[in-house]
């Protein structure tokens, strides 16, 4: 049971990073300025690195000879366990940066707390990721401020992004049964504890960006049960195409 819970919780976390990395990678070569082509790619690389570490660890915990790629490329939509926020389409630069900020502001205290996990591999992954995610907060946060306190158009686009995305943030604080088990066992942080730090990070940024988080709108939840929106299937179809077309081949 303990191993099964750890396996499931690691997969949830790995899927979050894999899917958001993929979304960021979609920008590569198409960003508003060259510096952003580099920065978005950097964040995509950080996140794919974290995903690989987590999938490998999950595969070891499972002990059935599956690889990181088997876990990433050979599971379908209903088996993916990422939260809904990370699968949201890029839409525009405002959506992309706000999505990144929401996620990074959650992961920073998460990794901070995971530095004291009872699992050595998780501590290692946390040590690397905590530094990266601090940069993601800074980078995305600066853009959110520039857009919110920039032109009329940029402010309008950022407000639209807020309307679209804030309903997916509640899910970050929900612990699945597996994640709850791992939190009680001291393996992974308790997601439900992190809301205050998350808000402390976001509040000053949103104040400078003249941005408010709407209240009283029912949240969207379901990713941890494999209940996704329609966009994820298309993302996976593209991502998994070669592995599906050539079963068993090595690349």
């Amino acid at each position, binding site marked *: 049971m303990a191993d099964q819970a750890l396996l499931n919780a690691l997969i949830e976390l790995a899927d979050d990073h894999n899917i958001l990395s993929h979304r960021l*990678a979609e920008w590569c070569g198409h960003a508003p300025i060259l510096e952003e082509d580099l920065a978005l790619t950097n964040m995509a690389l950080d996140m794919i690195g974290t995903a690989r570490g987590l999938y490998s660890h999950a595969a070891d915990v499972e002990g059935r000879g599956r690889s990181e790629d088997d876990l990433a490329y050979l599971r379908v939509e209903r088996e993916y366990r990422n939260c809904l926020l990370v699968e949201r389409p890029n839409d525009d630069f405002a959506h992309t940066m706000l999505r990144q900020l929401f996620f990074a502001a959650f992961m920073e205290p998460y990794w901070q707390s995971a530095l004291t996990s009872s699992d050595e591999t998780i501590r290692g992954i946390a040590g690397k990721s905590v530094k990266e995610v601090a940069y993601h907060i800074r980078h995305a946060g600066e853009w959110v401020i520039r857009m919110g306190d920039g032109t009329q158009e940029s402010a309008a686009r950022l407000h639209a992004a807020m309307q679209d995305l804030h309903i997916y943030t509640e899910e970050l604080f929900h612990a699945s049964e597996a994640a709850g088990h791992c939190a009680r066992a001291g393996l992974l942080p308790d997601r439900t504890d992190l809301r205050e730090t998350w808000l402390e990070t976001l509040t000053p940024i949103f104040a400078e960006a003249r941005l408010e988080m709407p209240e009283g709108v029912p949240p969207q939840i379901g990713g941890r049960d494999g209940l996704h929106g329609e966009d994820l299937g298309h993302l996976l179809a593209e991502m998994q195409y070669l592995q599906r077309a050539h079963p068993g081949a090595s*690349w």
Partner: protein
Amino acid sequence: MYSQGLIGADGRTEESEAFLDAFQKRIDAEEKIEPKDAMPEGYRRTLIRQIGQHAHSEIVGMLPEGNWITRAPSLKRKAALLAKVQDEGGHGLYLYAAAETLGVSREQMTEELLSGKAKYSSIFNYPTLNWADMGAIGWLVDGAAIMNQIPLCRCSFGPYARAMIRVCKEESFHQRQGYEIMLTLCRGTAEQKQMAQDALDRLWWPALMMFGPHDADSAHSEQSMKWKIKRFSNDQLRQKFIDATVPQAEYLGLTVPDPDLRWDDSLNGGKGGYAHGDIDWDEFWRVVKGDGVMNRDRIKARKKAWDDGAWVREAALKHAEKRAMRKTQEAAE
């Protein structure tokens, strides 16, 4: 990645003979020319065009490989491809910065690219049609780029030469990475090996064209050689590339798509080398002039990124203005 074996040094100049002689003496003494030094206008224009074309090639070159990032077949390959395309963006950035030292802005250069006035390497107007193209681009296109760029590390213009040193280190890593993709595919399933052969079939001739027209048809090369912007002729570099690459193809078990390719003892001053068949220069000029399969799509993609991003750049400028204004107000109070 790489700029075309550059078409055209600009020899027009209005300086006095004494000035030009003194400049040539510095070049002949292998002194580096720095941005603030006096230089003939033709030298400046040639470098702006060459470095600009090189920068544009890096930026447009992100697209054919970017085409496979979201379909890369493993997490490791995806990370490596992302990092490679990111390196190309980084090369574009230093090259634009090197060109800016000569008095042209990145915005001006970007506008020239989008309007079709500035050129970029014609290799990027070919589509990437299977995963093996990611291997073949690294192996052949970056391989050809290295042949062209190693001599540029000794280019007479200091900022370009220094940028090239870093670029070459990264390119040589890309080249090995590309070859390793090819090797993996050639040792894989029959379908994978077929992908590798298909990529070589499509990219071999365009890679040879990257060195530019034959020396006899390369009108302005002589002036570039004299100014030590260029150190070897197009044909010399092409020959070097073929001699290095044919044995690599053999090791992969792939067939170079040139029925006239054969060893010739008389080449390379009697040391021997591979003689090759005729290059289809009509195709080369057709693609350079804008009629390759992907020319229109490449510019359209760059233009879309630029236009879609306009509001983001405007927001950043406006925000910086607002901050500066608030600071001034605070200081006045």
